[in-house]
């Protein structure tokens, strides 16, 4: 759940992208029926996640599970904003 006031914006998406960049394969962020590449700020912005939006994170490679958790934590913490 996106809890911070501004939603998933450029800076916060940037924080996610930095984590996703360490993944072996693509990490996905999904909202409803659409998904975006968590390594791409632009792609994530197109999901239009405002405050209160529910998203789910998944990894293509099971080895990236720890990164998925870190992203989820970051989102749940409101990006420390």
């Amino acid at each position, binding site marked *: 759940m996106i809890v911070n006031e501004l939603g998933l*914006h450029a800076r916060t998406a940037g924080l996610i*992208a930095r984590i996703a960049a360490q993944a072996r394969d693509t990490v996905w962020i999904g909202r409803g029926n659409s998904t975006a590449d968590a*390594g*791409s700020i632009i792609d994530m912005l197109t999901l239009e996640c405002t405050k209160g939006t529910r998203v789910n994170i998944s990894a293509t490679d099971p080895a990236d599970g720890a990164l998925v958790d870190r992203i989820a934590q970051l989102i749940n913490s409101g*990006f*420390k904003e």
Partner: protein
Amino acid sequence: MPETKSRKIILTGIGASPGICIGKAYLVDKEGVEVVGRYYIEPDQIEQEVKRFKAAVKKVRDELRAIIENTPKEFLTPTSILETQEVLLKDKMLYGKTIDTIENESVNAEWALKKVVTKARETFQAMSDSYLKERVADIVQLSERIMHNLVGAVPVDIGKIAKRVILVAPDLSPAETSQIQLERIKGFVTDKGGKASHTGILARSLEIPAVLGLKTATMEIKNEDLMIVDGSAGIVIIDPSEQQLIDYEERKIEYEQHKAEISRRSQAPAETLDGHRLAVLGNIERSEQVTSVLDYGGQGIGLYRTEFQYMGRTDFPTEEELYEKYSETVEVASPRPVTIRTLDINGDKYIAAQGSYEEQNPALGLRGIRYCLQRPDVFRTQLRAILRAAVHGNVSVMFPMVATLREVLAAKQAVREAAESLAQDKILYSDRISLGVLVEVPSAVMMADLLADEVDFFSVGTNDLIQYTLAIDRGNEKVAHLFRPLDPAILRMLKHLTDVAKEKNIQLFICGEMAGYPIHIPILMGMGMDGLSVNPQSIPSVKHMIRSIKKQDTEALAAEALKLRSAEKVFQMLQSNYKEILEEIGQRKQ
């Protein structure tokens, strides 16, 4: 219509930053980029074309890096915008897709980039959220920079604007706005952007009027056009009539009076209800900021950061250049005191000609007094400039990053030698300056009694002291929340310093960010600080706080706070004790 007659064109846009300004337009446009041709690339040249694109991206990345590194710490927020841009630069949707397009469609890099950006722009413009909609501007600006590097056009160097002007542009990227000589800008007018745009945020934080999102401003306005910008109403008048000029001049005065009303109260002395005074000074990094400190009611300059003159150049500033700025600052502030902090950066890193090298741990590396003692030539140039400027007023010098007694002794020796060399050269100087230690390394706190024997004052740099004591890098989002000025460890250190200062009879100031928050004032006062130095904008609320409390109460409170076991507990105690005053200050700020 005869040319002498005024055109009186009125444009309506978004008032992104309040205030009124009247002045001449300075147009910044981005010609030469709009026309992008398409041509096909031979299969064996495609690899080369991709390389050309990558090189252009790398250049933009380097430019951004250079701007980020040259931006003083104080503007950290805009820097994080720049950092986001840096990540965006390598974004798969921008970077990856452009390379795909070059490869799959065998087209030139310019065309591929334009195609990708146009697509992104359409996607974003279809969005309903206005904040997200505006983010497309970031992508467009970045692509324009890449495009400039591809076609080899030289962007307008905003850093070189020399007149007091109203800046008119299609849009301004964070990279561009961070290069503007802001004291030269009276107002901002742009075709694109809204309240949440970078230009809007910047204009508000600098209190410069701005009307954005005018759509056709750059077409209607010509260079040197006289115009009125009303940032409160979101109106721009080009070629105004005499009557309009008079009206707006009056409104401008009214607005400024209203602003002055707020800061006037801050001209009253910072005296507590029971008659104790606490010096409130301002932190600056450019000589131009002295007046804003005085306007906000500061009683002098408690921290003059001197790094700015060393940035964005390829050689070290000369003694004359430094002297000119220092003496200007000292003269304007005189008879009030000016405390100059000697160079706090690793100069070699900023002066490109010296060749930079990477340090794994710059915060623990060669900086501050360590750097100056290793570069006696650089240090001497600065000290000579300071001693010469001291003739014009009341000057103190403090040394940053002191960790050992030996450093203080060496720094004092350097001051003596600089004075002797001036005497030999028969150049006018004054050695009637106070010397101090900027206490920001924990070892300096532990050694405070010995250091105090050598200097006239201490000034506590809380930002670094907290960073080093609690081992917290505030730039690291994972631990930033642990950066707490009210942590018992920090309060005990401050207490120790006040005890030493009292015993050794030297003055104790605090110049870190901690002092800029009204909620911290009772504790700092209760411990017995002699003065505070804060950012100019924080002076009115800090003084208001001082005038609302009693010194006697704060002493009991400080003693109580030192017994508490966590930063949260101290914070809660301050909150509950000063709730009403803090609320009042919060309201006054708006």
